[in-house]
């Protein structure tokens, strides 16, 4: 067994939270720059130019990229040979709270009905998987509400198959239009159970832009969906253009013979993800 101190995890998570809010990942930055080179419409070029300037300014000044610094979402892979000194979700939540306070990040969580703000951005949304090995991998996403609201989950019939999946995803992005801050990144979860499909869709958003699913058949589906979404012509901020989405990511797993669970998790252009391996 390998021991990992609570302090080490705490410091790593504070770093993830504060850095994610200010630094656009290099793959997203490159994708926006590539889109700018490809776009012909003036408004699309103007918007993409502003987003690149915004990313540069945030990194330089320490201001958050977006005022919506999101829900603190964590996907954690805990090696079976790791012993954590403390209760892992509690350590992560406390570190997230400290990171949001120290980083001058907006506290965006509230009671769902009274709408009273929890005041410290807690609780974090934490998914823990136990995996082989003696390492602890913590993936963090600052997930904004505007794009999250455009996400949907459904239960298709097996007969609907790929055609049904494609129609649901493309229709969703057409209906979402300018609302989720395009160019988006689209996470698609196929299979599992009712609860698993959205988690697959969200986890898919951690894969860097341009990196395909290792299964060639799923990789081909990703590209087919990306083309279909970009053919919508919604463009950056809904003002028209070729770049409605920067990428589509699919994660898939087996499901019940009666079911075809499907989830679409929409990510805005400000895709703030970071990872640390302890």
């Amino acid at each position: 067994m390998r021991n990992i101190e609570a302090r080490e995890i705490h410091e790593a998570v504070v770093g993830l939270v504060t850095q994610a809010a200010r630094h656009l990942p290099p793959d997203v930055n490159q994708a926006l720059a590539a889109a700018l080179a490809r776009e012909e419409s003036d408004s699309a070029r103007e918007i993409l130019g502003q987003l690149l300037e915004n990313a540069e300014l945030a990194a330089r000044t320490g201001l958050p990229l977006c005022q919506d610094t999101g829900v603190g979402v964590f996907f954690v892979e805990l090696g079976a040979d790791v012993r954590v000194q403390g209760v892992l979700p509690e350590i992560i939540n406390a570190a997230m709270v400290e990171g949001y306070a120290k980083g001058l990040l907006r506290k965006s969580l509230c009671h769902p009905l009274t709408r009273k703000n929890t005041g410290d951005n807690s609780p974090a949304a934490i998914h823990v998987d136990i995996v082989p090995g003696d390492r602890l991998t913590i993936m963090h996403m600052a997930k904004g509400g505007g794009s999250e609201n455009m996400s949907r989950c459904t239960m298709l019939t097996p007969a609907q198959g790929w055609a049904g999946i494609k129609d649901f995803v493309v229709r969703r992005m057409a209906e979402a239009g300018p609302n989720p801050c395009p160019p988006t990144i689209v996470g698609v979860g196929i299979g599992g159970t009712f609860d698993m499909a959205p988690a697959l869709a969200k986890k898919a958003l951690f894969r860097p832009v341009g990196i395909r699913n290792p299964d060639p058949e799923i990789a081909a589906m990703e590209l087919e969906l990306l083309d279909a979404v970009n053919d919508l012509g919604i463009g950056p901020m809904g003002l028209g253009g070729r770049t409605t989405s920067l990428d589509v990511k699919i994660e898939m797993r087996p499901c019940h013979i009666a079911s075809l669970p499907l989830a679409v998790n929409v990510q805005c252009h400000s895709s703030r993800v970071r990872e640390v391996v302890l």
Partner: protein
Amino acid sequence: MATYSLTAPLRDEDLRKLRAGDVVRLSGTVYTARDAAHKRLCEQLDNNEEPPFPLQGAVIYYVGPSPAPEGRPIGSAGPTTSYRMDTYAPRLHALGVKASIGKGKRSQAVRNALQEHTGVYFGATGGAGALLSQCITAAEVIAYADLGPEAVRRLTVQDFPLLVVNDSHGNELYAKPNYDL
């Protein structure tokens, strides 16, 4: 498509000349309000209480800024998605509000209100919160402080870059998705 420099509060003659697609550099005073603040504002109106800011000519910015760093008036401050305020917007336009700033689509009821009461809906670039905050020179919480990021703030803006998305003549700028919805 034209570019205009306007000063808020806005007047009808400012708005009638604007067409969807025009660029506006806005200076002057705007008020922040988003979901919970709109609910409270309308509850105050229901109770015949004075609203926390003058509605006549007002520009409402749908934003919940991040906390201000030392030496700056405000943190990041980009627009939030506007459709969540569609429930409240027609009533506010009927009471004199002239414009809102946000991102994303508006309902038919809001578009009708813009035509009926000579208003416009401005789009700002979503997610460009660091960049847009540079155009805000002063910020002060004036109501509902307990709402934290959703409190109503009086902002002074200088050359804030906006696009006219919905004008007072029934036009809309957004691209129609190439899909049979």
